[in-house]
């Protein structure tokens, strides 16, 4: 790789000046001439029959242009992963986030007022809010037509022989862990503007993380609405946070389209903060029964996990999180025998979706908490049991993951040294240390049939480069990373590289900003395109300079002979030569990168990712035994990232993920009580503030990942994966109580301390 000029440098984000001056245009800021404002009315009850809807008063309100109910949705259209969700409900509502009516008006205030004038008569039905209840025989059906509340998704993975391994184990630890609903809390709420031209071609201004897939969803919807062979253009505004929340299409988007169709005007729907809490899809809550065993030397013998997920009333991609949960379940540490089964269960609660980590944090909480229990039984230091079983390069895991680069041991060592583990662990004096490790996909994830991303590069007359990428900038810095990669290949400054990444009319196809894949896939795609355009440039320059392309180099926009630097030509001149020559050409290169990873087979085996990301977190806590409050004194987050393309942006992912994980561990919880959200405001939902941010060290452990662009692996999600178990383990080390139900609130810690005093385990 040699001497890198741009890669590996702490380069500021390209869009930062726009964002620090308030000039960045988010969906909230976007206006289209003539546009109306849409608002959605949600159900008053978690489960009820809709007896009658009277919209006449709302329709009569001056300024109201359209009022829609479920009866206005053409051809029984439904959306979602298994098409079980109509954008506006008819007959029955199944949760309090069910959309029952929508209004488009000339101002948001009038639209809001109109919602109050819609009169709906409901007949309330008893609801099911507990997945365990919903699984019982004779339970009422959330969706009567499905005949079961358990989704027909066979999440099961088996490797080796767990029963035999149990018998052979020297020590076994078994317990049950549960996790809560948490929500993304994007500072910029969800929203869109649907605009149709005279021929019913749709332009959707959106903050989606999946422009190409959303385009397809909207095309399908238009088809069902009766508009075949239409065009859909998705334009992304600057996105005010993603974290997985925008990896699906949602009712509000289809409602905006329906309102726009009827109004014959563009319609904007932007969520209020209350809407955002109520009507976006949280991380799924889980109940996990786990047991793990080891031999007398601490080598893991088996891992058995049964998991129940509350699916809520409808099915989004959240129901597929067990697939990613399998990554740590099958492959975190070397475990030869595995049994895993997960059931997603319909209830009358909110339905879940993707959220940073995609199931991995829930699974890792159970695995890593339980591993400490096992270590205690076996009389082994929690640190040693992790070292003994750590993953290594060259390993093939039970799920057939081919481990290439792996810095897990190095990450554990960083944690141990920086925490002063040896001196601090095992004191049980109110202060304690804990750690947990992680594995996650680090070289994309073949969730869909394709895991690809396209890039087009063109060079203009002035020697500047346009990179047109399918990937999305959601704040993570993909625009900057892609610029760095292209700049490195072409020997240019990143200021001369312009990234275009927000318009499906222009940008190539991509499956979306998910699975920590953008640097890896879009980066490799950009790398391929840059190399192709470089070849073209060198060929033309070589002709002009009378040299062979191999004899040339390119730096700062000048192509020169390595032997004789006087022999040179500027990039702009190369371009002008080809543009202004009869029979000329343009300089454009395209590259589609689809990584050589595999879809799971029917037994959930297959090399899901080209590379795997590793990390270890360690934490020192102090517990107030009178109140149960936990204070984090020191936090170490060590991550194997392959090569750090931009350490500054990378640290931002680790810090941001880490604090999100701390929120998950210690405070955040959406409280759904019998189907009603009880804390849908920032006042009551405790997302961490700067005052909650503990001292944290982001430690970058570099390994060279051959398949990654300049050696890089993904880092978008890992930052929050091991946080909760590391903290839970530290609390145990401090005061001897283990909290198995997230979040670890002071009240729970105190209650556990009191139980311990009474002599109960």
């Amino acid at each position, binding site marked *: 790789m040699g001497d890198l000029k741009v890669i590996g440098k*702490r380069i*500021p*984000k390209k*869009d*930062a*000046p*726009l*964002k*620090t*001056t*308030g*000039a*960045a*245009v*988010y969906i*909230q*800021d976007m*206006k289209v001439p003539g546009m109306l404002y849409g608002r959605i009315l949600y159900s008053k009850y978690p489960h009820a029959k809709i007896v009658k809807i009277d919209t006449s008063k709302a329709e009569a309100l001056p300024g109201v242009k359209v009022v829609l109910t479920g009866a206005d949705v053409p051809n029984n259209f439904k959306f979602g992963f298994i098409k079980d969700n109509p954008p506006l409900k008819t007959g029955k509502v199944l949760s309090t986030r069910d959309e029952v009516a929508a209004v488009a008006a000339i101002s948001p205030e009038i639209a809001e007022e109109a919602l109050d004038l819609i009169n709906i008569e409901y007949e309330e039905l008893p609801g099911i809010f507990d997945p365990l209840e919903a699984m019982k025989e004779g339970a009422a059906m959330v969706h009567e037509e499905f005949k079961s509340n358990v989704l027909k998704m066979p999440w099961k993975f088996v490797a080796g022989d767990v029963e035999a391994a149990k018998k052979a184990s020297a020590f076994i630890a078994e317990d049950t862990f549960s996790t809560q609903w948490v929500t*993304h*809390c*994007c*500072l*910029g*709420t969800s929203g869109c503007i649907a605009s149709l031209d005279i021929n019913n071609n749709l332009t959707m201004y959106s903050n989606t993380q999946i422009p190409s897939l959303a385009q397809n969803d909207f095309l399908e919807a238009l088809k069902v609405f009766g508009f075949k062979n239409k065009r859909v253009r998705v334009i992304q505004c*600057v*996105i*005010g*946070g*993603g*974290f997985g929340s925008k990896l699906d299409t949602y009712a509000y988007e289809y409602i905006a389209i329906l309102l726009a169709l009827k109004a014959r005007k563009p319609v904007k729907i932007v969520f*209020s*903060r209350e809407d955002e809490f109520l009507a976006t899809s949280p991380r799924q809550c889980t109940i996990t029964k786990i047991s793990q065993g080891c031999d007398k030397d601490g080598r893991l013998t088996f891992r058995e996990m049964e998991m129940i997920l509350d699916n809520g009333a409808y099915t989004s991609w959240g129901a597929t999180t067990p697939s990613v949960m399998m990554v740590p379940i099958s492959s975190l540490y070397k475990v030869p025998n595995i049994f895993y089964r997960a059931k997603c269960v319909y209830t009358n609660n909110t339905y879940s979706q993707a959220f940073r980590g995609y199931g991995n944090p829930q699974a890792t909480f159970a695995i890593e908490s339980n591993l400490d229990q096992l270590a205690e039984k076996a009389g082994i230091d929690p640190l040693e049991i992790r070292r003994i079983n750590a993953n290594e390069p060259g390993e093939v895991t039970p799920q057939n993951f081919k481990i290439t680069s792996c810095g897990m041991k190095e990450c554990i060592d960083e944690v141990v040294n920086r925490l002063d583990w040896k001196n601090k662990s095992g004191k049980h004096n109110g202060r304690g240390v804990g750690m947990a490790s992680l594995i996650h996909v680090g070289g994309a994830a073949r969730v869909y049939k394709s895991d690809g991303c396209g890039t087009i590069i063109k060079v203009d007359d002035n020697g500047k480069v346009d990179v047109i990428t399918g990937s999305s900038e*959601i*704040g*993570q*810095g993909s625009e900057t990373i892609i610029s760095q990669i292209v700049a490195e290949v072409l020997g240019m400054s990143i200021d001369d590289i312009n990234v275009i990444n927000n318009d499906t009319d222009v940008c190539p196809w991509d499956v979306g900003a998910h699975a920590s894949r953008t640097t890896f896939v879009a980066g490799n795609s950009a790398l391929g395109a840059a190399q192709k355009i470089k070849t073209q440039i060198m060929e033309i320059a070589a002709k002009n300079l009378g040299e062979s392309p191999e004899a040339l180099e390119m730096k700062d926009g000048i192509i020169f002979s390595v032997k004789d630097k006087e022999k040179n030509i500027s990039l702009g001149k190369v371009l002008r030569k080809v543009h202004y020559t009869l029979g000329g050409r343009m300089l454009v290169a395209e590259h589609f990168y689809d990584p050589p990873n595999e879809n799971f087979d029917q037994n959930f085996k297959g090399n899901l990712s080209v590379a795997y990301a590793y990390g270890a977190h360690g934490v020192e806590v102090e517990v107030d035994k009178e109140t149960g409050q936990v204070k984090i004194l020191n936090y170490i987050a060590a991550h194997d990232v392959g090569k750090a393309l931009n350490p*500054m*942006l990378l*640290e*931002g992912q680790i*810090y*941001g*993920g*880490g*604090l*999100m994980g701390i929120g998950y561990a210690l405070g955040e919880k959406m409280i759904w009580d019998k189907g009603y959200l009880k804390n849908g*405001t*920032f*006042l009551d939902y405790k*997302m961490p*503030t*700067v*005052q909650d*941010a503990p001292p*944290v060290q*982001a430690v970058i452990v570099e390994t060279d990942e051959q398949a990654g662009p300049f050696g890089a692996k993904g880092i978008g999600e890992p930052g929050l994966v091991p946080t909760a178990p590391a903290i839970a383990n530290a609390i145990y080390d401090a005061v001897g109580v283990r909290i198995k139900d997230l979040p670890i609130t002071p009240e729970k810690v105190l209650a556990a301390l009191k139980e311990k005093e009474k002599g109960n385990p």
Partner: protein
Amino acid sequence: MKKEITFTLNKEKTIMEVDPQWTLLHLLREVLEMTGTKEGCGYGECGACTVIIDGEAVNSCLYPVMEVEGRSVMTIEGVALKDGSLDPIQQAFVDEGAVQCGFCIPGMIMSSKALLDKKDKPTEEEIKESIEGNLCRCTGYVKIVDAIKSVAGGR
């Protein structure tokens, strides 16, 4: 019923006809189309709408528009110089990698600027206090605090 108010907005004398029901945020975003000031929650819980009034950071979403009468308001649009060059605090946010999705950033800058305008060399505690009312989901706040620190005391 509309009422007239006179105030200073980003150093310019401004006379507006307003509804007393409006918040200052409504006037800025919806009427004046100055969308640099963000609305993240509407209830004073996230700080995205922070502006500086007479030198102090306030949430413009909970600020009755009538109360700007006679006062001086600075929004994010008034922070950079007219030639487009960034204020040192803005430059620091760029250079230190404090910006991710960016939605909270105008509010963060207004909150920290209100501090820095009053205090050359604030302590870390004062820096954290200045942005305790500004939520950010992307950054974990580390680089935001670093950015403010780097400006404090002229580096």
